[in-house]
């Protein structure tokens, strides 16, 4: 942790839930970004945890915007700042709903236009801010308030969609690995053009596990292969350390599923489907890393 700056841009007065991993991630993201940064935040948990006017727990300009609008607002902001000769980092920090569902058109447009910005999706796999409704990011079998019997469809593959836009840099990260995240944010911000980081952000009330298990839940996601850490720089994929280790001998996904209340009623068939998806995904990523794809 020696290289991570001591400066704090998020104070201890946020109204985040106990064990909130997305605010933990944001703490490290802003340390990597530094003070010459603007955060663009669509409707999501982060819109709420800043605090209530006239107070804010964030010591950085935060531009709150409508749900579908983050990437487009960032597009205008970045273009205007660059036109004025300013290098200020423009960073979208959006949840999965605001990214894979309502915000995907604006994200796709901003990526396609080559907008100079960093888009970060913190994925807690549901509309957590409104109380855990199903999103396109919710995995198969997970119970939410709108899929009380468990989701019958799979998780939308956001990374494949983003990859199709061929951004100069994209990466995955997980709240349980803050140094990995920190380095990826640093690298993303050093590259001109649209860059993208997709973070798995476990959510205690949404996933129904005790608040003190947030780090463990992230580690289990990586160790089972449910989440793979990698980065793709100018088309070159490299698997990040924790996933390299995990992919040699991944844990069975049951070790991840059984610790979360949202999977309490998942059936064996869904577990098998999930396990097969994990294996296919690991194989695809491994092939790409070896240059066979």
């Amino acid at each position, binding site marked *: 942790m020696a290289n991570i700056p001591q400066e704090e841009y998020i104070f201890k007065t946020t109204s985040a839930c106990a064990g909130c991993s997305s605010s933990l991630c944001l703490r490290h993201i802003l340390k990597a970004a530094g*003070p010459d940064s603007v955060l663009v935040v669509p409707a999501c948990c982060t819109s709420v945890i800043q605090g209530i*006017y006239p107070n*804010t727990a964030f010591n950085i300009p935060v531009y709150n915007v409508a749900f*579908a609008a983050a990437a487009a*607002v960032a597009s205008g902001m970045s273009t205007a700042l660059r036109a*004025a000769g300013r290098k200020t980092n423009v960073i979208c920090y959006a949840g999965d709903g605001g990214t894979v569902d309502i915000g995907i058109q604006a994200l796709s447009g901003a990526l396609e236009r080559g907008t100079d910005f960093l888009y970060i999706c913190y994925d807690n796999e549901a509309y957590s801010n409104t109380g855990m409704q199903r999103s396109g990011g919710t995995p198969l079998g997970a119970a939410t308030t709108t899929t009380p019997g468990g989701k019958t469809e799979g998780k939308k593959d956001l990374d494949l969609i983003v990859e199709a836009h061929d951004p100069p840099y994209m990466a995955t990260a997980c709240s349980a690995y803050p140094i990995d995240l920190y380095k990826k944010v640093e690298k993303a911000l050093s590259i001109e053009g649209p860059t993208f980081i997709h973070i798995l952000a476990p959510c205690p009330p949404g996933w129904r596990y005790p608040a003190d298990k947030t780090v463990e839940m992230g580690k289990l996601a990586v160790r089972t292969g449910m989440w793979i850490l990698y980065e793709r720089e100018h088309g070159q994929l490299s698997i990040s350390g924790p996933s390299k280790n995990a992919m040699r001998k991944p844990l069975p996904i049951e070790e991840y599923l059984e610790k979360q209340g949202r999977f309490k009623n998942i059936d064996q068939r869904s577990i098998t489907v999930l396990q097969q998806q994990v294996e296919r995904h690991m194989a695809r990523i491994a092939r790409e890393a070896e240059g066979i794809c």
Partner: protein
Amino acid sequence: MLTIATGNKAVADAVKDAVPAIVAAYPITPQTEIVEQIANYVASGQLASKYIPVESEHSAMAACIGASATGARAFTATSSHGLVYMCEMLHWAVGARLPIVMANANRALGPGWNIWAEHTDSLSMRDTGWLQVYVGSVQEAYDATLMAFRIAEHNDVLLPVMVNLDGFALTHITQSLETVDPGDFIPPMHLPHAIDTGRPAGYGTLTAPGDYYRFRWDIERSMRNAVSVIEETQDEFGKRFGRTYGMTEEYRCADAEVVVVAMGTLGKEVEIAVDILRGQGVKAGSMRLRWFRPFPDLDLAGKEVVVIDRDYSFGFGGIVAHAIASKYDVPIFSVIAGLGGQEVTYDDIAGFVRDRRPGDEYWFGVDA
């Protein structure tokens, strides 16, 4: 410089002369020529703006918001479905107090698909807090667009301005146009709440009931201030460039017994109808509403009023007629005409006045 131009070209030329830092836009008939012309000015180096070719109108307004928030001048143009698609962001621009300027080519809404003139698109956005001006000629489209930047960015206003011109009836017709060298008519934009990383702040954070209404009242206070800013800007424009405008444009109103109120190109058409009626001994006048928000004070005392609405609020009535009825105790004959580009001639208008039935509503073309 004296030239001839379409309404769309006039708007694009005004934008060229106002030099926004960014233009973010999405094509839609009948506005498309505006953004094509601007893209050409940018590509040929005649306009030093950044052009952001967004993927939707919602994103057009969102990008204008992002740019404007940094203190940069921003412009977009849209029409009809594009306008209502960006509705959410229209509200956002107002709440964020951003002086964005937008041209709207007034067009009917589908279904059925209809690309011709109607005012229901912009009038259905009347409660967003945007200033709205409706123009009646190519020259006025240019002049109003130029003035819109100065009005929006005035620190007593800091609200966005929508310049409305009738689809096809004005966007695509050709008239003479005199462009000007604006000089310092539009001062450099200074946004007091521009994003400043040296002064971190939360914009649009959660605002509780104890504070929210204060921001709403501040919008209304600025809307009220806008009346004098508009008048002062129009006066200054007249002094510098020789063309004068009011909140309304009145024609033979002083001694009129019956006044026709309309907006846009139909409002210009009324002036010809008034001459016809005067020739027939009817003491008619025309009061073309230019500004709809803020809504002007109208001198209608003692007159009968015929309102022509090129719009409708279903289950209620003509939007302009009811705006006037709610403010003035005058006999009103409400005419609904010109919807979806329906042909309305000055002879038809003269007929509305001759056959007026104060207190009634009349749908032109529908058997009564």
